[in-house]
């Protein structure tokens, strides 16, 4: 469904954020993209939805194919119309608009009839939003805001959903709620999903396939269960050593130092 080949992305013409990344999201699958801070995950998603330009970001090299079409030069609004919807990091609601207006904005490209059905569906999925629909989005709690962000994306009827850290800053039971909703989208609606997460353990639980990104490169990829079993991943992303015990901070620092030597 989505295929990235040899993507290279820079900011301000010199800061190289993504070096040489190839990645694939097959139809109806949930693919996790994991990696530490600054690895280039968000940058990659912004490149797919073509919203790098306001931040002076630029794709120097590489190809983005979506449903057999090269969308590298397609404008952001056309990409949304093609069915790729991106829920950005930090939710990015319209703070002075009401919850319902935010959701309606998600259906900006949809027909009015489809819009009302989709709105009902989101309210069934997140009943809490229905109670708060006349409230200003800026005053919602973080979890409620994330629900609006996901709901807003669903109203646009995506074929491919790009989710950037949906669990950021949320309490465990809200994370569970959101992840359940994400799983259902794949299972019941057949939506393909590219999920960026810091919470690797949780993401690997629901994903079909995973990529691990470091310093702008993919360093590892495989099915979610393979990745979850991989010793290095266990150590550095899931926080467990070989014997199931948490690694100490000093060991991780040691690894980083070694890695710097190698790279």
């Amino acid at each position, binding site marked *: 469904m989505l295929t990235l080949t040899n993507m290279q992305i820079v900011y301000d013409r010199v800061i190289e954020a993504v070096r040489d990344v190839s990645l694939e999201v097959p139809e109806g699958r949930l693919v996790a993209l994991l990696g530490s801070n600054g690895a280039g995950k968000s940058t990659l998603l912004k490149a797919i939805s073509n919203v790098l330009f306001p931040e002076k970001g630029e794709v120097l090299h590489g190809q983005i194919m979506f449903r057999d079409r090269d969308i590298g030069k397609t404008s952001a*609004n056309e990409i949304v119309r093609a069915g790729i*919807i991106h829920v950005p990091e930090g939710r990015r609601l*319209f703070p002075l608009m009401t919850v319902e207006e935010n959701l309606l904005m998600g259906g900006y490209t949809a027909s009015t009839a489809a819009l009302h059905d989709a709105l009902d569906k989101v309210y069934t999925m997140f009943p809490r939003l229905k109670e708060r629909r006349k409230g200003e989005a800026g005053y919602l709690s973080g979890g409620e805001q994330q629900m609006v962000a996901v709901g807003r994306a669903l109203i646009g009827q995506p074929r491919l959903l790009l989710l950037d850290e949906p669990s950021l800053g949320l309490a465990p039971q809200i994370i569970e709620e959101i992840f359940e909703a994400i799983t259902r989208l794949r299972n019941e609606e057949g939506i393909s999903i590219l999920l960026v997460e810091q919470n690797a353990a949780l993401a690997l639980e629901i994903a079909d396939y995973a990529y691990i990104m470091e310093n702008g490169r993919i360093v590892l990829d495989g099915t979610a269960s393979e990745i979850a079993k991989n010793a290095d991943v266990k150590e550095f992303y899931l926080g467990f050593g070989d014997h199931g015990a948490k690694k100490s901070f000093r060991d991780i620092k040691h690894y980083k130092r070694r890695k710097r030597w190698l790279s």
Partner: protein
Amino acid sequence: MDLFLNLVASGLVIGSVYGLIGMSFAIIFRTTGVLNFAQGEVMMLVAYTAWTLTHTLLFPFWLLVPSTIVLAALIGMAIERLFIRPMTGQPIFAIVMVTIGIAITLRSLTTLVWGHEFEGFSVPFSGGVVEIGPVFLLTEQLAVLILFMAVSAMTWAFFRFSRVGMAMRATSQDETAALLMGVDSRRMSSFAWAISAIVSGLAGVMVSVLFARAPDMWHFGLKSFPAAILGGLDSPIGAGFGGLIIGVIGELSAGYIWNGLKEISGLILIIVILMVRPYGLFGEKELERV
């Protein structure tokens, strides 16, 4: 009391003109963050064009209104496309400087095409007198008030309910997020310039009807600027009411205190109000969360 009411009424009339132009400042500012210092000149250009339609091409009034609206929209969009869009990504300050350049260009263009003469602008509804209790109004003054109310209501409904109006608000709050919703932000900018040219253009026609079609009518742009500041630059409706307030205060201070105060009382008021409410009377507060 009669004097008071008549002063308030004429204040509301002139305030409606300030309010309409103030609204057009706010429509562009709220959507694109640009202060258009050529607003008065755009108003003048539309008024002159409408004058030519009426007095040279002899358009009947029913045809004049829709054609003025269409021409105003085209003028607004053309300016945006030729001068503002190429500046995308430049600092806002540079874009504001460009609008000052546009202002000067439009002023000379207008005198180049139409000359320096003042000309009356006649419309079928002018010349009558309406008596409302102790207040006397000319029919064209009443028309300005009605126009103000109609445009305010339409502007409010447009931003509140229409899909494009909502998208314009969304763009002003978070451009990248709006792009991710499928909004074409360049088109929003073009729409803002079009709507703003229509609103100020209609005000310009009324100024020509009330006074004359004259090469210095762009002054109304400057005089209306305080209205936009007072009401809040990001709130078109607020800017409209800001215009009414400035108009009434101007007339009252001129009538009761000293004629020279007419022009400056509004500015004094703004300084006081902005010290208390830096976002203007109706401006949207910045939320601290998010």
